[in-house]
């Protein structure tokens, strides 16, 4: 396993007086495929916002490639642009499919965006819909556009916040295949938040359980599912209600 890409050290995120995330120590290796599981309100989406540098930690240090991000030290734009997120609900701009996929590239001032956009759309099987208004797409198509919009940026880290939660099996499978291939062939670090423990087991090399803002257990996938160390992880893996 290569050097840590992220290092979390006493990271807390608070909204008002409520602490929604508290992680003492955690390292994420470059090129890993991590799945984060846990019930609603466990802090999974908050953690993704921190890892994408959309929000700073309220306390502690989040290191990315050695660069420390803290409450008073925001990530520089160049680092922030190495990471991107696909959310559960695809928020597409009220423009064409092509313009949506091109959005991030145009922000970066890339002039070779038309070819890249075309390739990304081919990758998600939507090249024929390039000129269609994005708001006219089905849920599955829209999520594939959201994925194309992310992968076209060739990010170092791809954060996925329950990207297949509302999709039919065909679209879910397609997205899983694209994401797996990206991790395998490009070495893109993937951090997937999911409620689906089968999906976590199928895709990830590392799995972590978040509960009420705390990282209860994190480990290699087989060990996480076959011999969990924490009784709460064991209960979660067995599908018991632990919340």
């Amino acid at each position, binding site marked *: 396993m290569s050097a840590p890409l992220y290092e979390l050290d006493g990271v807390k995120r608070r909204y008002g007086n409520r602490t929604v995330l508290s992680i003492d120590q955690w390292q994420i290796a470059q090129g890993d495929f991590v799945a984060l599981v846990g019930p609603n309100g466990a802090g999974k989406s908050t953690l993704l*916002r921190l890892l*994408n540098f959309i929000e700073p930690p309220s306390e502690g240090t989040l290191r990315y490639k050695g660069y420390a991000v803290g409450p008073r030290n925001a990530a520089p734009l160049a680092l922030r642009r190495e990471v991107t*997120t696909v*959310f559960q609900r695809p928020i597409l701009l009220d423009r064409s499919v092509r313009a949506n996929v091109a*959005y991030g590239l145009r*922000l*970066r001032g890339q002039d070779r965006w038309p070819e890249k956009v075309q390739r990304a759309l081919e990758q998600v099987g939507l090249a024929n819909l390039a000129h269609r208004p994005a708001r006219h797409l089905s849920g599955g198509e829209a999520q594939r556009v959201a994925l194309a*919009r*992310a992968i076209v940026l060739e990010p170092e880290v791809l954060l996925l916040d329950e990207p297949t939660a509302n999709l039919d099996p065909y679209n879910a499978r397609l997205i899983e295949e694209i994401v797996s291939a990206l991790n395998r062939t490009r070495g893109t670090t993937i951090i997937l938040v999911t409620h689906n423990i089968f999906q976590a087991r199928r895709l990830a090399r590392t799995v972590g359980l978040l509960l009420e803002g705390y990282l209860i257990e994190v480990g290699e996938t087989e060990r996480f599912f076959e011999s969990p160390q924490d009784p709460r992880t064991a209960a979660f893996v067995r599908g018991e209600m632990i919340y």
Partner: protein
Amino acid sequence: MSISKGEHGTVRESLIQALHLILKADPALAEIVALTFRVSGIALLISAAVGIPLGAALGLRRFAGRRLLVSLLYTGMGFPPVVIGLIVYLLLSHNGPLGQWEAPFIPRLFTPSAMILAQTIISLPLVAGFTMAAVMGVDPLLRQQVLALGATQGQAVKAILSEARTGVIIALIAGFGSIISEVGAVMLVGGNIEHRTRVLTTAIVLETSKGNFELAMALGIILLGLSFLVNVALVYLQGRAIRE
């Protein structure tokens, strides 16, 4: 204007007279139309430059005093133009707090600049208020999404405004509509001086008071027509923005 004056004219006669005035390219009319558009155009530009960022900030940010500011904005949206005209008049008059100053950026009473100031005060709350409503109607997750795609805070605001463009253009239409048709404030601060501060609305009032109803109607038809053309242009822009 060198148009024959009549008694209570019919709409048909007024239409003919309006067409006659336009086709003849009456220089007095051209001067009035040009000043009308200069005053209202500049006022709308200033309102847009200040009101769109202000509306976006009020729609996107939560800060101390925001509610008070929004309440003031809503009050401003319904403020009678003639009262605004009166306030500007008192501010700029010789004994007023601004009238005593000799600064180049303070307009003088009975000048187009004073009319621009009054019209800006009228349209600014409308542009800001409608922009705020439009921005608040955009999915709150959009900001997070564009930031996740690498947008700066400024680019995120631009993306949100772009998504709210229908509402923003409605804000501009409302702002323009409120000032192009306004008469009380420009009459008070402009004085309806021939060749200096006469605009279409004040000319209509003057011709009506003189009993030149056909001419007044003709000017009204021209005002309506020009206002319609501007709104068509704005709606066209709206459609083009959506297609892009």
